[in-house]
């Protein structure tokens, strides 16, 4: 499985984090069930609906929660034994509002840097720099209790960045932001993702955010791994199935296509068909249409977006799983 995931990501890089048959139960509830994956450096989207197990996975990776069974590793370190060493190298941006309200922006970010081990002068210098980066240069001396939702999100990003960690764990960073704020935050994340030697994990249920920022994805649903790997590769492999919309005698087209070795099946409407991408090329589809006297009104990959990919995998959880 690990090899499969790595091969699908196509990175071949040392694992940023990995899990082997990772399971975590809370009483009768299985938060994670037998997760096995291996993720290399880069921008990774950790996606899934609420309750998918994203936060549980983050807690385990940070060394704040022990798995019920299985194992995990971050930078090759065991989170259970080397949690402090891992947290030195990770910047975590939580989803919920958890700032210290009476502190100023720069005071808070510098304080968090110092708790991560930065000397005081370096912590303050970096606090100023990261607050400028996230667009809070003018507001850095205001108390956090006076900050808007968007500003709070940016401060949370700044405190995760202040000690310049090689890995950022960002939990729903665009939560609560208006469209403008969301776009700005995603632009920041994209810049961060492009830094060499730096990785980020974007945990979200907003698939569009992942498409804009990430080059790898880990998809979870109900505590199980749907798939993981390179975003381009996943969308590419998902695009192996084509959707054809036909005008005219659909049955005649189906017969003609079947005679040419294609395997069309009915889609969501009577005029819509789905079929594997023909090995001999898409000309076979047009030839079948010509032969049956029908018109091709649409021809394209059945899955072209993360959302479609995710929904297709949720519908077929076992087929899409890399385990």
């Amino acid at each position, binding site marked *: 499985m690990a090899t499969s995931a790595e091969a699908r990501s196509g990175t071949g890089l040392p694992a940023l984090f990995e899990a082997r048959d990772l399971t975590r139960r809370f009483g009768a509830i299985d938060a994670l069930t037998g997760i096995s994956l291996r993720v290399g450096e880069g921008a990774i989207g950790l996606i899934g609906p609420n*309750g998918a197990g994203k*936060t*549980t996975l*983050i*807690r385990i990776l*940070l060394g*704040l*929660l022990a798995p019920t069974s299985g194992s995990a590793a971050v930078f090759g370190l065991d989170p259970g034994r080397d*949690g*402090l*060493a891992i*947290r*030195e190298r*990770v910047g*975590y941006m*939580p989803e*919920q*509002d*958890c*700032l*210290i*309200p*009476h502190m100023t922006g720069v005071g808070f970010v510098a*304080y*968090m840097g*110092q*708790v*991560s*081990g*930065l*000397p005081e002068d*370096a912590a303050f*210098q*970096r606090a100023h*720099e*990261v607050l*400028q*980066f*996230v*667009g809070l*240069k003018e507001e850095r001396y205001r108390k956090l209790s006076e900050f808007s939702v968007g500003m709070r999100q940016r401060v949370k990003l700044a*405190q995760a*960045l202040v*000690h*310049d960690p090689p890995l950022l764990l960002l*939990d729903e960073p665009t939560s609560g932001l208006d469209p403008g704020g969301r776009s*700005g935050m995603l*632009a*920041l994340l994209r*810049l*961060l993702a492009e*830094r060499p030697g730096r990785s980020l994990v974007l945990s979200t249920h907003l698939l569009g955010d992942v498409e804009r920022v990430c080059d790898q994805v880990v998809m979870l649903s109900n505590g199980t791994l749907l798939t993981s790997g390179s975003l381009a590769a996943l969308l590419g492999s998902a695009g192996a199935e084509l959707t054809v919309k036909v005008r005219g005698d659909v049955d005649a087209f189906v017969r003609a296509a079947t005679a040419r070795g294609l395997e069309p099946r009915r889609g969501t409407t009577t005029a819509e068909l789905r079929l594997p991408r023909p090995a001999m090329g898409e000309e076979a589809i047009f030839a079948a249409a010509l032969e049956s006297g029908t018109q091709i009104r649409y021809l394209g990959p059945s899955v072209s977006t993360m959302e479609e990919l995710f929904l297709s995998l949720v519908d077929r959880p076992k087929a899409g799983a890399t385990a």
Partner: protein
Amino acid sequence: MSLHPPRYSLAPPTLRPHASRVQVVFWATVRERLGAMNIVLLAFIFTVVLLQIIIPFYFATLVPGLANGPELSFFYLPFASQVWFFFVVLLTASVGAGVIANDLATRSITMYLARPITHLDYLVAKAAAVAVWITIAVVAPTLLGTTIVLALGYVPLPLALQAAGAFLGVGILTIVAFTGLAVLVSSAAPKSAYAAAAIFGLLAGAEIVAFVAWTISGEPAVLYLSVEQDVLATAQAAFHVPGGVLDPTGAAAILIALGAVTFYLAWRRLATIDAVAE
């Protein structure tokens, strides 16, 4: 919005060792508790304690032969008046209530525990900060008062040193018990206001309950339930004041055990907190 990644102008620093991170949290918490109310309470405490230490020796000087000159038991007066104790309880509630409860209420505890410190580090830093404040209220004024009466020539040096040792010993027991109780209540309360009420109730209320129970039952052992009575019992022994109804060794053991058990329970409580909540 600026759209440039941070350009760190300092070379990547070597991260400071683990202990220094705990110190950062400790000092930040000490400063955070520096509120106007706590300053006022400390002013009351210093005033009360200094007056209660200096005045008996002053009158002993004015009236030669009074109580056969200065004695160690003169230093017991701050304990006997109970005013000092009341203000120390108030200060403990004021300082200790929010020390963890505020972090839980704002969920900023997430920010601490997702960093390279453990639950125990966090608790030690917070407890040490509370202990500093209680030390300022319990040990500092007594040592200052002792120094003043020594400087004024009211007491000889050996007696002053003996008193300072007694104040320090009783003070440490008080700090241990009060700090443990404060951090436990603060870690268990959903709001700092509730924690303050609970700390005050457990420290001051227990005295009333124990005293009433003793009056009704006539059994002095129930006084062990009161932290104040335990402190008084150890202070009576330390300052050679006769007439105590409790065994000072037992009372001291209770204070130490109270501090240790409450600290342990606070640690267990913190370990159950989800730093990264769903």
